[in-house]
Each structure stands twice: as structure tokens, then as C-alpha cells.
């Protein structure tokens, strides 16, 4: 009898403990089911930091469009963070239906993992880049250090703020733009390029892990003389702090192409393939393109881009990742992999 009662008590307590765990785990099962309800549909858009304002407006635009087309209410859950971090979370099981990230390479990691089908780059127009941007300099009002172009950044006493290319998508664009510029100088060899880049990065005083972090460091915490920034970020900073900063466009920069893609595996699982595809395709509509322009992204539609010629410096010479660096795969291997050029410039 004793033995029996002992066991029964044990069982009760154990099952209690297990039940509490089970309750935890089951928490999410329920929430999945409401995505399948016919009148409303929900998708998740995992994006990177600076697109918050853009997608907040675009989601409304798209919801109205979808309601008119299909009569369905669509809600979009947004997630923002560093581009690489966001891609990783999707890779690790964050079930995004669409990803709208800073780098083609980040999305390609998802393809390698089997979440996105091959050939996604050709899925949508313009290499699946509905809007583009470039890298510019943000300096303090009056440009006290007289920064005009990339070669001013290597001068002693100039403090540069840029994120870490190992962890930030934006930072890779910065690095490559600088590299391209130093490559175009007369008498440039790979050795001189490395030296110049090294000089530039030795002027970097804070190497945040993400583009947003760098911007905050420069704008809010007053570090450094110049911030290497996405053009749209730079404009945003001007808007937030009118009169404190100036944008300097260098003579040469890089065409930064944030990419978008449907995460096929997740969309299939959620039954949201149609709406996800439409969500991305609609980014190319005139309304959406205009919205991108208003949020300081360069619309990929040339006609709409023209509408914003007072905002953007359309004369800037732009190199491109595919044309000048042989695509992301090659660029990553050459510059950003462990032990590659970026690591070398920090070796003493």
C-alpha cells in the first residue's frame, strides 16, 4: 500500500510538471490555425532595420489592394533587425512567408538551406530588387572636416563610424564601395587598395554590429566625424534632426540592391503562397514605387525615379555587385569570410 501511494503522488507531481511544459509548447499550435481562416489571411515579413517606415505604409497599401482584388483581409506581421540576424532567424525556424533583406547573399543563405527554391533572383523584375539605394556620407553640420570623397576618410584625425561587415549587410556595401573607389585611383593595385582600406578602417572608432547601431552611435551619441550610411538612412537622419547634419555624395559609390523573396517552404506550409507572391509583386506597382521614393529608397522603375530627381543625386557613378565584384558569393569569399581581406586588415 505504501509503495503504491508513493508512486501515485510522484505521478501526480510529475504529470503536473509535464503538463505545465506541454501547456507551454502547445501555446503556439492554436495561433497557427487562424492563418487558415478564409476571410483573413496573415503573413509574416521578416525585413531589416531601416525599412520599418516603408513597410508600415506599404502594408496598408497592399491590404487595401488585396481587399479589392480578393475580398480578403490581410494582416502582415513585421519583424525588423540586422539583415544577417534576420536571415539567420528565418533559417533557424522563424517562419517568415516573405523576406525583404539588405543583401542578396542573406536571402541566398535561405536558398542554400532549402527554404527558398533555386532561381529566386529571376522570380521578380530587376533581380528581385524592387528598390535600390547607395552608400553616402553623413557629416555634421557645416562639414567641419571638409570631407568630400572616400580619400578624405583615410586622413589622420578623421573619425569614421561604420558597422562591422562581418555582421552587417549595410557595412558590406560600405566596404565594397570604398574598395571600388580605391581601385579606380591611378596606379592602383590590390596592395594599394588594401593599404587604403586599412587606413580607412583604422580611422573607425566604433564598429557596431548593425547599420542602425552605427547610425544611433553617430547621430544620438555624437561619436565620429562621418557616418558611412545607406542613402535612405542618411535622409531619415536629416528628417529626424533637421539642421544637424549634411549628406555628402562621393564621386563613386555602389548600387545597393536590397532583395526580396518568398520563403517557399514556409508559405507552402502556411498556405500563403499566393498572397505572398502578390505582396512582393505589388512592390513594383507605381503606388508602391512612389512610396519607396518617399521613404528615400530609389525606385527601380526609371520613370518614377525621375520624379525624385530633386531628392537623389542621379549623377553619382555606381558600381554594381554583379558587374564589378562577380556577385555576392565571390565577394564574400574574397573579402568577408574568416581570414579574408577584412580580417587581414585588422591583423597587426
Amino acid at each position, binding site marked *: 500500500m505504501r509503495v503504491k501511494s508513493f508512486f501515485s503522488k510522484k505521478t501526480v507531481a510529475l504529470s503536473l510538471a509535464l503538463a505545465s511544459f506541454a501547456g*507551454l509548447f502547445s*501555446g*503556439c499550435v492554436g*495561433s497557427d490555425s487562424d492563418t487558415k481562416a478564409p476571410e483573413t489571411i496573415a503573413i509574416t515579413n521578416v525585413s531589416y532595420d531601416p525599412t520599418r517606415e516603408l513597410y508600415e505604409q506599404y502594408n496598408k497599401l497592399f491590404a487595401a489592394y488585396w481587399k479589392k482584388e480578393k475580398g480578403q483581409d490581410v494582416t502582415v*506581421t513585421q519583424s525588423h*533587425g540586422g539583415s544577417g540576424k534576420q536571415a539567420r532567424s528565418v533559417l533557424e*525556424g522563424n517562419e517568415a512567408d516573405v523576406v525583404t533583406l539588405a543583401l542578396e547573399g542573406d536571402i541566398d543563405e535561405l536558398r542554400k538551406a532549402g527554404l527558398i527554391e533555386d532561381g529566386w533572383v529571376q522570380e521578380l523584375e530587376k533581380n528581385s530588387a524592387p528598390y535600390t539605394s547607395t552608400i553616402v556620407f553623413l557629416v555634421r553640420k557645416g562639414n567641419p572636416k571638409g570631407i568630400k570623397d572616400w580619400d578624405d576618410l583615410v586622413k589622420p584625425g578623421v573619425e569614421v563610424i561604420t558597422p562591422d561587415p562581418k555582421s552587417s549587410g549595410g557595412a558590406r556595401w560600405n566596404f565594397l564601395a570604398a574598395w571600388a573607389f580605391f581601385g579606380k585611383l591611378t596606379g592602383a593595385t590590390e596592395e594599394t587598395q588594401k593599404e587604403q582600406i586599412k587606413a580607412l578602417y583604422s580611422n573607425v572608432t566604433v564598429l557596431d554590429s548593425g547599420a542602425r547601431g552605427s*547610425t*544611433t552611435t553617430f*547621430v544620438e551619441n555624437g561619436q565620429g566625424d562621418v557616418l558611412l550610411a545607406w542613402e535612405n538612412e542618411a535622409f531619415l537622419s536629416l528628417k529626424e534632426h533637421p539642421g544637424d547634419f549634411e549628406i555628402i555624395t562621393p564621386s563613386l559609390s555602389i548600387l545597393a540592391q536590397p532583395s526580396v523573396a518568398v520563403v517557399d517552404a514556409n508559405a507552402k506550409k502556411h498556405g500563403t503562397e499566393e498572397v505572398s507572391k502578390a505582396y512582393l509583386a505589388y512592390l513594383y506597382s507605381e503606388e508602391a514605387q512612389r512610396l519607396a521614393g518617399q521613404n528615400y529608397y530609389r525606385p527601380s522603375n526609371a520613370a518614377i525615379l525621375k520624379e525624385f530627381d530633386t531628392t537623389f543625386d542621379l549623377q553619382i557613378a555606381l558600381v554594381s555587385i554583379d558587374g564589378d565584384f562577380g556577385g555576392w558569393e565571390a565577394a564574400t569569399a574574397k573579402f568577408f569570410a574568416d581570414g579574408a581581406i577584412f580580417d587581414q586588415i585588422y591583423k597587426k
Partner: protein
Amino acid sequence: MKGKITRWVLVGLGVLFIALMLLLPLAAVLVYALRQGWATFLSAVTDTYAIKALQLTLLAAGITLAINTVFGLFAAWAITKFRFRGKQALTTLIDIPFSISPIVAGLVFIVVFGRIGWAYPLLEAWNIKIVFAVPGIVLATIFVTFPFVSRELIPLMQASGSDEETAAALMGARGLRIFRRVTLPHIKWGLLYGVILCTARALGEFGAVSVVSGHLRGKTNTLPLHVEILYSEFRLTAAFSVASVLVVIAVLILILRNIVEHKLKREERL
């Protein structure tokens, strides 16, 4: 005379240190929160996403508290009332989460439950989501605050010995009665103290939760994560406004803690 001077110098140094290291950051949060007036503050605090984040934070802290309290009681009972081999190792194991970097803690759950983890196919088959969903956040919070209750209870129960429990058991009392009538009255304030500390940590956990959250707005954002997001969205004032909510909660918890500690000390004198 000399003694008095030393005394005031020492008190002064202590107060200065606390003021510089602790009070100033606290004040900074509040000042920054209100620098654009109450309206901005209120709109940041009453934002839908902020409220949802607060709800999630409270939910996660609540579940964490329940589980860690249960665990703490059982673990403390096992460790202090019995003799067995490997007790030292067990105590150390329980304490591990305490000194593990929150980043590593989060990573560990990704490695188990994430798409790359070994448990993923299993969960997939059952259509259960752990990481990048609420359960993952709760789990990470539990992990980080795991030893809090037991850490408070073990020394307390060790100090009081197990004679009283033995005496009660010898008279035929069963486990639950012994616990309720003999042990609980003795440890109740210590238990509450542990629970309060656990709550404080659970409400404020950032690193581990940030790794497993996925930052889904309105779904898996806790309040500290919301602060970080606002911060990186240039909405500094909003970030500090939401942060100030957390500060107020923290201060309330501290006051509670102080009251409890006062009681605890009084009981100890018995």
C-alpha cells in the same frame, strides 16, 4: 573625532558611488523619457505594440515564476534534506544558467528547437513551435532565472537543519503536512524573496530572449526587446519612455524586496 571623519568619508564615498553608478542611469532614463513632454511619453507607452509587448513580458514572467518556484522548492528540499553522492555537482549544475552568457543560453535553445536543431523534425510533425514563438521566450526566461528561487532557499534550509522535519516524520506526518506545517513557515519570506528576484530578472531578460524571439512585432516582442527596437528606430524618446515603465516596475520590485528582506531579518532573529 577622527572616527567621525572616517565615518563620513566612507559614507560619502559609498553614496557617491551608488549615485554615480546606479542613480544616474536611472535618472537619465526618466529624464530622457519625459524630455518631449507627457504626450509623447503617453503615446509611446500606450502604443499597441508596447502594450502587447508588456502583456507578453508579464505572461512569460508569470509562467517562469510558477515553474521556477516549483523547481526551487523541490530542488532545495532534495539538496538540503537528504544525503546523496554528487550533491556538490548537482548544486553547481543548478547554478549554471546563472553564469552562462545569455547569448549562449539563447543559442542553446536554437540548437535544440530551431530548424537546425535535433528536436525540430519531431516538433514539426506535431506542428509545435518553440523558438521564434512564445514558448521559446518562456523557455529562455526560465533558463536564465532557473536557479533564483533555489539559491535563496538552499542556504536557508541548510541553516535550519532537518531535525524538525525528521521529528515530524518520526511522528508519522506525511511529506505535504511536513512541508506545510514545519518547513514553509520557516522559509516563507526567503521563498518570497527568491520569487521577487526571479520576477525582476524574468521581466528584464534581454540577451537570451533576443536570440530566440525573432522580433515579430506584436507576437514575440517582449518589453525589453521593444525598447531596443525603438532605440534602433531612432525613436529615442519612445525607447526611454517604455524603458521608464520597466524602471518603475524595477523600483516597485525593489521596494517590495526591501519590505520582504526586513521581515526576513526579523524572522531570523527568532
